[in-house]
């Protein structure tokens, strides 16, 4: 992890009809994997949607531009000043559950992630770079052998891999993952976390993940952020957070004791 900062949010408030997030501060550095944890309804997903530009916010959210083609590269700019295309080169969002009513092929679905690199127009077609990015994303996610399969024929776990591949093909600087391992089988959960490790290790990228499974969060994270009722309760090294006092208060139980006794069943 180096010191260059990718995302810096301060005094962030956001929500739907009423605010759900209150005065949140968050920072993500290059090479860092940040896990957001907290009980149901604490605002984890809302925070992730703010970071991905889907939800409007109050306060300040600075994004350091990493896109090689941008004239503002290296500058920290307010998130709202980015166009959709610019923003999608900085952050990619993997939703918790996704689907389509219409049965696209796996390859075509992943190619949609290249939208932010393609010129608009009637006759523009995917470039060689686009095709290479798609093929490498398919391979990373272990779905290179089913490019022609229709989405409607895939299992939940396979679908999740397709959407991960689409987000990787998008090639953003920061991956925003909403409970990414939810639908994956055990084997691919581990493979997935290895994949994110390799992806982040390039040094100019980062990842933010929302997790329910604290063991997976520990495996994923360099830094952990504990939330409750729309506020950041504590943020720091994962070990300190899971063994701290606050986590037991937030989850209303002795977290580490319970998880340990659960694993005793093995």
């Amino acid at each position: 992890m180096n010191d260059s900062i990718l995302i810096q949010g301060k005094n962030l408030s956001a929500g739907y009809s009423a605010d759900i997030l209150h005065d949140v501060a968050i920072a993500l550095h290059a090479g860092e994997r940040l896990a957001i944890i907290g009980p149901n309804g604490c605002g984890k997903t809302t925070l992730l949607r703010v970071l991905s530009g889907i939800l409007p916010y109050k306060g300040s959210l600075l994004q350091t531009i990493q896109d090689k083609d941008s004239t503002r590269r290296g500058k920290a700019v307010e998130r709202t000043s980015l166009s959709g295309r610019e923003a999608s080169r900085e952050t990619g969002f993997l939703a918790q559950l996704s689907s389509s009513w219409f049965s696209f092929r796996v390859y075509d679905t992943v190619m949609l992630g290249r939208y932010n690199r393609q010129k608009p127009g009637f006759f523009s077609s995917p470039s060689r770079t686009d095709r290479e990015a798609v093929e490498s994303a398919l391979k990373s996610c272990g779905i290179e052998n089913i490019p022609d399969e229709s989405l409607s024929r895939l299992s939940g776990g396979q679908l999740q891999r397709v959407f991960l591949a689409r987000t990787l093909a998008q090639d953003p600087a920061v991956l925003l993952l909403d409970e990414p391992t939810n639908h994956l089988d055990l084997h691919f959960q581990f493979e997935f976390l290895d994949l994110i490790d390799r992806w982040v290790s390039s040094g100019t990228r980062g990842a933010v993940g929302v997790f329910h499974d604290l063991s997976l969060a520990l495996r994923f994270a360099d830094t952990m952020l504990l939330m409750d009722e729309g506020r950041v309760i504590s943020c720091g090294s994962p070990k300190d957070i899971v063994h701290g006092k606050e986590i037991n208060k937030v989850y209303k139980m002795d977290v580490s004791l319970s998880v340990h006794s659960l694993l005793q069943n093995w």
Partner: protein
Amino acid sequence: MRLPDGVSPSETGIIWSLRLPRVFLAFLAGASLSVSGAVMQSVLKNPLASSFTLGVSSGASLGAGLVILCGLTLPFAGAFTIPLAGFIFSVLAIFAVMRFSRAIDPGLSNNTIILAGMILSLFINAILTLLSALSKEEINRLIFWQMGSFALKGWTPVLILAPILTIGIAAIYFFSRELDIMTFSDDEAAAIGVNVKRTRRTLVLLSSLITGCTIAFTGVIGFIDLAVPHIVRRIFGPAHRTLIPFSALTGGIFMVIADLLARTIIPPLDLPVGAITAALGTPFFAWVYVSSRRNPA
């Protein structure tokens, strides 16, 4: 140019001034209704979406209905008063639906738009029923207009519709990639880089424009906009680069055939073409509904 023997001038007259414009008009109407159906379904991620469920057709009916029932004729529009009113009211209807949706749901979610469209349709149909109950003399004209027809319209609607629909469909085709992306969730589309609200508004307006103009000239013709895109998706896949042009082509051909059947199935009766498309379309509607319930997304 000399005609072959045995072809009388009256026959050429029938072909040139009755049959040919009728075929062209049917093709244009089928193409535009099908494309607008494809767009509405994709943008709203709902296989049952169409200009009917969004209130566009009801809006056009109300416009035409008011003109017919009040016996209005605008001085500058003349014979075009009904089409013009139909078009204006269909655009007003979609604006009302979008406005109402935004007021109750600033995120402009798809279910809200469809719900608002359905409510507006029901409301307008109620008004129309009341209006026609009040004026018994004009009720036949209104009913006939609502059934839709390509007969006796001449070349003028063809010449007006052709450029509008070509430009409208080309503009929609320009958004093929955005349409592909928008069939997934709004969150994902935004994260991939599409300006969801603006693109959706543009596309809904474009497809209302082409349907509104079409309905205004031909009357309400149902089910083709719902059925054709589904058939084309099954055959050519859901990517809009093929879906849009093939919907236009398939819809156009389907409408020409439906109109041919309407004219010839019980000679010399000229059945309303809307009845033919609906008779073919209703079982299809049920099939789409049942099969989409069976494979929930």
